[in-house]
């Protein structure tokens, strides 16, 4: 019993981490149809900035906000200066984000050196709450909460504001969207900024959980993509379900059959894609 409760909890919190990683990517991917290779870099920069800000201010939440806003600002600038110029060309956009990712990889190495950091959250992150005989580490609870908030923000953005639909319209047909009086350039900047913001949040929260070090950017990228791909491009609920399924699968896979732990993440992806090329919830 304890095993199952603990492992389920672990699985859910891991799913939260996956969703944190993939959330911003889903947005940028689904709404703007950009394969954003630089997503991992946003995460990395967010994490490093978080470490620096925690050291400077001593307040985790201040650091979280500050780092995420800084990354968002960076994202806005990137969109405005670079991505705007290659609009509408999937491959060239990917190439550009790849270049940006390489740049940040090296820049972070230059600024923060190669030693790993551990982002220290508030002291209570190291503690656990006891509930009905089970213990739940607070850090993991916090991750779940963060993922929850993130989901709500994204859901609100896509469902309750017209902005999501506007951007999708703009991707389909920018001219016609403008002709409806929609300021497409600002909108794209905002969406990309939001995506970067989410990556920054993920970077700070993720660093509190697993530390931060060079190379992490390209290490987490496949995880972020797996969530988006399995869920179905642009489907928020898809990403949510995918994160949950993958989190639990990975967790129980590791715990029960450690032999297959290489495949717990990528095998489901291959299977899903073989039967539903558009992902679980994607529409063609």
């Amino acid at each position: 019993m304890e095993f199952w409760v603990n492992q389920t909890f672990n699985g859910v919190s891991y799913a939260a981490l996956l969703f944190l990683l993939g959330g911003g990517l889903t947005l940028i991917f689904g709404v703007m149809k950009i394969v954003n290779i630089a997503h991992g870099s946003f995460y990395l920069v967010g994490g490093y900035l978080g470490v620096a800000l925690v050291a400077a201010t001593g307040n985790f939440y201040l650091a979280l906000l500050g780092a995420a806003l800084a990354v968002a600002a960076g994202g806005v600038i990137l969109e405005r200066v670079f991505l705007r110029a290659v609009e509408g060309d999937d491959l060239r956009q990917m190439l550009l984000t790849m270049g940006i990712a390489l740049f940040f990889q090296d820049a972070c190495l230059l600024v923060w050196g190669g030693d790993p950091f551990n982002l220290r959250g508030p002291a209570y992150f190291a503690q656990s709450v006891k509930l009905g005989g089970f213990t739940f580490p607070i850090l993991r609870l916090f991750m779940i909460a963060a993922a929850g908030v993130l989901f709500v923000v994204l859901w609100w953005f896509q469902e309750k504001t017209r902005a999501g639909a506007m951007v999708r319209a703009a991707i389909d047909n920018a001219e016609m969207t403008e002709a409806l009086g929609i300021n497409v350039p600002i909108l794209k900047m905002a969406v990309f900024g939001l995506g970067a913001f989410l990556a920054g949040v993920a970077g700070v929260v993720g660093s509190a959980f697993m530390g931060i070090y060079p190379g992490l950017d390209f290490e987490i990228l496949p995880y972020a993509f797996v969530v988006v791909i399995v869920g179905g491009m642009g489907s928020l609920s898809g990403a949510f379900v995918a994160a949950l399924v993958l989190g639990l699968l990975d967790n129980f896979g590791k715990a029960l059959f450690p032999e297959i732990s290489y495949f717990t993440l990528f095998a489901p992806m291959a299977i899903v894609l073989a039967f539903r090329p558009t992902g679980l919830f994607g529409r063609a």
Partner: protein
Amino acid sequence: AAEKPPIKIGFIAPKTGNFAQFGLDMLNGFKLYLSEIDYMIAGRKVELIEEDEGATPANAVTKARKLIEHDKVQLMGGLLMAAAAYAVAPVVQEAGVPLVITVAASDDLTQRKASKYLARVSLTGGEHGHVAGDYAYRKLGWRKVAVIAMDYGWGHEVTGGFQRVFEELGGQVIQKIWTPVITTDFGPYVASLKPEADGILDVVTGAASIRLIGELRKAGVLDKKKVLAAGTATDETLLTALGDTALGVLTFLPWSQALDTPENKRFVERIKQVTKKDYVGFSGAINYGAAMWIAEAIRQVGGDVENKEKFFQTLRATEIKSSPRGPIKIDKYGHIIQNIYIRRVDKVGNLYQNTVIETYPSVSQFWKYNPEEYLKQPIYSRDNPPCRHC
């Protein structure tokens, strides 16, 4: 005497990518010694040509070719990744240039795939495993051990060496968990560690080690049991990030920043001036030693490195009585014989350190076994030795 041209040494280490810091530490250590002797050995200037190992072995091979054919180096050093070392070795051997591996740890480089012009002054996984197995059985009194190890060469070899010695003494390895090299969440692995184990062998390195040890601490494993970890799991460069979580973890490695010898203290002082950091990584220390040893060999041939055969024979015969990590010499397969220390993570004042609590002097890569017989067995791997008590 007529001015002789400089001795050219090529050095391949990662300068970009995930292991850039490692490469930088390697170079810092190596160059620290060279600068102490003003880049002059036996009256000849030394020219160090650095090349980036890059992210893939293919890169390292191209760089090695460049050093050989373009720069015409007389000796090649460095190499961090085992795969890169395996790939570079045949290329360098074919050209007849001596290769001194200063980090890459895979057993077979100096065992079943040993080659003529190759020497290694770092360490191997197997030899470390042997020491750990002995220590766990005799000193820690463990009888049942659970292993959690990274699923690649280093993990396999440390685990294999450990298991062989430990089980021959009478212990039992009752669980082996192989974790993918990139593992973001160790929670489930830690939760499934068998409770009946007397202790845990941890062969996870680098940043992942921070996560694993943190998880072991959170799950209470570290409060109940001892954890014996392969040295780089608590490398000095990780100590800040590890913080209090690692206190009490035992590790084994041929060096520690806290090693209390005059040579080491002097080295630590000097390297700190270079890096401006409180903590000195182990790769800096062993590369410093490597440079010492290479320089000594060159001195012994009077700077005549052009006579390849003689130079290389001298290189292999060279001994250093006192380096930061202790005495160094080379066995006839080209691998180093050196002390291995058992260390414990402690907090002294505001700083953490790996306190040396036990020394295994002059350890051979073959432990106490007969080399010829040892080499008849296949290399340690996931299933060798097989897990008979799992």
